[in-house]
């Protein structure tokens, strides 16, 4: 019905190998892109700045972490630290006089170099041991940022981010900052969509599935794990810088603590490991569900004239939020993206019940 396959014949390799071979997928994507780009024109500044903008930025971060966790299968519990390095490095670079584009690169490179150093140390261990090692990275980076005044300006200090600039032109509007973040998100999305089709992506998946089976076909697990750490940390660093420039506009060490790392991991897992779409869904759920639940519970309580204590009122959304995440994962252990995929598969074979 929706995803019509009848009559669609690919007569060239080019058309058969495109990212979205089914026309409906392309149309849907075009529509969503249009909605995303036009958002500043139909959304109120509140919705744009506090819902959509963070969603776009955290999606980028989740995509970066998904490359490492979903594609290469390496757990990372210190992603906020990676983002912090990028944010601080980029801000110091712009203060030093570099143009913003170069500062973003500096942020990304700083993150990837430090991330790689920790990755190399961590890669002698696997699975849960790796998770604990990356946790150590989080603590070390946290400690360093707080205790080296040259980086943070002291534990209580706030570092003001210089004005966002595109090729030297200052960007002062909310819409401009949103588009800037959206542009980066688009670049990372296109990169990740294509990673699966390259030898790099296939090598990562091989390492994830069985590292010794990868080694036996000439794919060096060590090299590709490091490459995954490098790429993922680079994306994390740039995203951290964007977060600082476009969203927070002033950074403090608390913005990149352990709970933020856990939140990004939650986005990746709830959305779906190894799924680009999943990172969007996951970031959306983890970021926006608490806000909406809060509003709903508050308005419901006032509508029903319930005189609840404020602490009860503030706990209910958290309970619902936790229940929501557990519920989704029980319903579909492979994440939100798989729920979408199931629906899509259903319509792909409709009106039949099965494909063979």
């Amino acid at each position, binding site marked *: 019905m929706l995803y019509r396959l009848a009559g669609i014949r690919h007569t060239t390799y080019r058309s058969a190998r495109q990212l979205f071979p089914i026309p409906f997928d392309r149309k849907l994507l075009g529509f969503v892109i249009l909605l995303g780009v036009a958002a500043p024109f139909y959304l109120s500044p509140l919705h744009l700045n506090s819902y959509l903008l963070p969603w776009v930025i955290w999606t980028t971060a989740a995509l970066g972490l998904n490359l490492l966790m979903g594609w290469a299968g390496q757990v990372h519990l210190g992603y906020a630290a990676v983002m912090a390095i990028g944010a601080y490095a980029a801000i110091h670079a712009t203060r030093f006089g570099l143009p913003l584009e170069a500062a973003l690169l500096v942020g990304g490179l700083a993150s990837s170099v430090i991330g790689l150093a920790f990755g190399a140390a961590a890669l002698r261990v696997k699975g849960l041991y790796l998770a604990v090692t990356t946790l150590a990275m989080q603590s070390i980076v946290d400690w360093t940022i707080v205790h080296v005044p040259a980086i943070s300006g002291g534990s209580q200090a706030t570092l003001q981010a210089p004005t966002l600039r595109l090729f030297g032109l200052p960007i002062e509007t909310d819409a401009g900052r949103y588009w800037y973040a959206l542009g980066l998100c688009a670049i990372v999305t296109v990169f990740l969509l294509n990673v699966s089709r390259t030898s790099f992506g296939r090598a990562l998946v091989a390492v994830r599935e069985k590292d010794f089976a990868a080694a036996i076909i000439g794919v060096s697990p060590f090299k590709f794990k490091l490459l995954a750490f490098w790429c993922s940390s680079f994306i994390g660093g740039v995203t951290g810088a964007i977060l600082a420039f476009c969203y927070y506009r002033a950074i403090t060490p608390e913005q990149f603590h352990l709970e933020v790392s856990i939140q990004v991991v939650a986005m990746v897992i709830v959305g779906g490991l190894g799924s680009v779409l999943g990172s969007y869904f996951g970031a959306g759920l983890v970021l926006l569900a608490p806000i909406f639940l809060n509003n709903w519970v508050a308005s419901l309580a006032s509508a029903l004239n319930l005189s609840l204590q404020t602490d009860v009122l503030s706990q209910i959304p958290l309970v619902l939020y936790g229940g929501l995440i557990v519920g989704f994962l029980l319903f579909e252990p492979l994440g939100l993206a798989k729920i979408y995929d*199931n629906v899509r*598969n*259903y319509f*792909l*074979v409709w009106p039949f*019940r*099965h*494909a*063979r």
Partner: protein
Amino acid sequence: MLKLENIEVVYDHVFLAIKGISLEVAEGGAVALLGSNGAGKSTTLKAISGLLAPERGEVTRGEVLFKGRDFKRLSAPERVRLGIVHVLEGRHVFGHLTPLENLIAATSMHRSRAKIDGLVEKVLTYFPRLKQRINAKAGYLSGGEQQMLAIGRALMTEPKLLMLDEPSLGLAPLLVEEIFEIIARVNRETRMSVLLVEQNATAALSIVEHAYLIENGRIVMSGSADTMRSNPDVQEFYLGGAGRVDYRNVKHYRRRKRWLA
């Protein structure tokens, strides 16, 4: 004893792998499932032992009866307690345990220590090779020994129906013969039913009474082992040809699986 009635298996909600298979295993009987790769033999076994869920599969239609009772709703461990045990393709022994510990690990349904000791003794008489390596690490056993351990481990649950998925996988011909002899002996001595999936059709047909031929998720042929063996199609496709070729009568076309249609 075991009866499948027109079962359908769907993977991931949309991929239909088994399209209505019915088969029967009598008490004390030995039955083989034959068929080429990807025909649905292993999926059939998993539908019986309850292992479809981890692979996102599901029996969507039909009945799976054991002694007249539909057990589709039971989980895999509950089915073992019912007396259905599945020896997986590719062995899957617990590598960090010794063979003895592997055997004992499969006895959670038995309460009496003496019974467990008796069962270990019995399994070790079937597989004397395991006795020699009883305290080694199971991960360091050879492929054949691991296969014996996997079968022995299944026997520890005192099954009424033993399902074997490719027990000859990767084993030397002599070892295959040895393992098949033991399976036949267990079947004969304890009246335990055997359901065997095997690529090595010659070996399989030598120990079973009845066989089903599966292609594309459907049963396309069934009969006693002797009828199957003498069927020219089975000979051509699964038994490696009919032996010497008489070039005077040689046909100018290749035999086709007409029953696939």
